């Protein structure tokens, strides 16, 4: 298993996409359930949220996956549920991920 960094960014123009109380509630619950699922399976190692989103970056996850393909599948799922554009970056090893983990540990 290796660690991967998933970077979630709002797509340009996303802020102008309308949401509603009902849609927002649905999205929060669906995303929370997915994160819980990751936690339960030990796949979510850490997360970070920028204090003030810059350049569209909204959230980062460090996930465990068996390889690039598995990490990409997690990224695709996150993208589908959150509407983010998700980039996947492999981390060299667990040791290097420790520094990032301290940003926000689930």
């Amino acid at each position, binding site marked *: 298993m290796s660690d991967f960094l998933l970077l979630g960014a*709002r797509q340009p123009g*996303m*802020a*102008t996409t*309308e*949401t*509603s*109380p*009902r*849609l*927002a*509630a*649905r*999205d*929060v*619950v669906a*995303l*929370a*359930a*997915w*994160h*819980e699922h990751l936690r339960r399976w030990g796949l979510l190692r850490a*997360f970070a*949220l920028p204090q003030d*989103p810059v350049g569209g970056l*909204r*959230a980062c996850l460090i996930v465990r996956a068996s390889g690039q393909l598995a990490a990409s599948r997690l990224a695709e799922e996150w993208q589908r549920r*959150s509407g983010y554009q998700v980039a996947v970056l492999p981390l060299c090893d667990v040791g290097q991920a420790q520094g990032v983990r301290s940003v*926000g540990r*689930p």
Partner: protein
Amino acid sequence: MTESAETALAEVFGAEWPLLIGAAMRIVGDLQTAEDVVQETVLTALDRWPLQGVPDRPGAWLMTACRNRARNAVRDNGRARRAIASMTREAAASAAAGPAYPEQGADHDEIGDDRLRLIVLCCHPALSADAQVALTLRMVCGLTTEEIARGCHLPTTAVAQRIVRAKRVLREHEAVFLADEPDVRARLPAILDVIYLVFNEGYLAAAGETLSRGDLAFEACRLARLVTDVIADEPETWALRALIAFQLSRSATRTAGDGSVLTLDQQDRSKWNRELITDGVRALSRARVGGPGPLLLQAELAACHSTAATFDATDWHAIVAIYDRLQRVQDTPVVAMNRAVAVAMRDGPAAALPLLDRLAEDAALKGSHRVWAVRADLHRRLGDRVAATADYQRALRLVSNQAERRYLECALRQVPGAAARTGITREAEHDAAG
């Protein structure tokens, strides 16, 4: 999180939405910018809450984030003069009102006023009724353009244009949000009309596949409650709340599983929403303080139906008497038609037919299927098959709602010999259905 969590969260977001728009409006002074700010605030919650968990006081979290974002928007946009003026006003208002976000049980007047101001703004007289409805649904209820379009059976682009134009008109009229005292009394009829329009649109769909579009009807119920919260001393607001609560209490039983219409005598009264009926009764008692306006009388009529234990227990004498009073304050063909139905129930169909014959010639009702459907039913009850068939056919030519169409088709089929007279054969029916 579960489905109940989703419902609870939707309630939080729904309750906060107009407050957030109001708070942003107080700072940025422009409806479009305020909407953008709230939109971005909700997106931030969407980023954070799934990972960090929903805060203990989600409303306060949203309000703080919204105000910060609004201040940033003012700063970023560089609208120095307007910003300084509006922030000065906000600071003064906040200083006078106390804490930035009141604790539970604290005085909610300022926030209440914001919601009221928002409704008043959305019902600006420079806007058409359609625009008022669309803008209220977006700004006060938080429905998306797509949801409004779906609810009103309009193209999304048409609703989007309506909302954009409405915002532009408000800007052109320099519609003020931060008025010292919103001119509520003057706008109250428009506000109540908008809520009633939203309710009617949701409760009895003018067109479409199903009879009701529940979401809009429930939004109207929420709006009516909100208005009674913020304009508690106006009996007409309570009358509207009562009327909507009574009508909505029956919504789950108005159609069968296959979508066909169920009339009052066919509905399972044990499934009527008791909570709404209780709310309606309470609201009605507060509404009776005022004069007998059209809303109060309509609420009284709805109460007669909603509080009758069985269909046979319905007090048709009282209902006709209320219709008589209603005709004195609102003498419209629709009221007259409904009164005729009540007369038919009290005195029998023969007594009501002459009333309907006159109404069938009324220009306002000629294009509506309802008068023909009612007349057809009376003819059927009197055993006049030919007249019943002719009137059902006429109603069918005019009806646009598919659920009502199915009801009329079913009623027509039940008129003995109607199929032969209309040339409908079982085979033809089968072909049509196929």
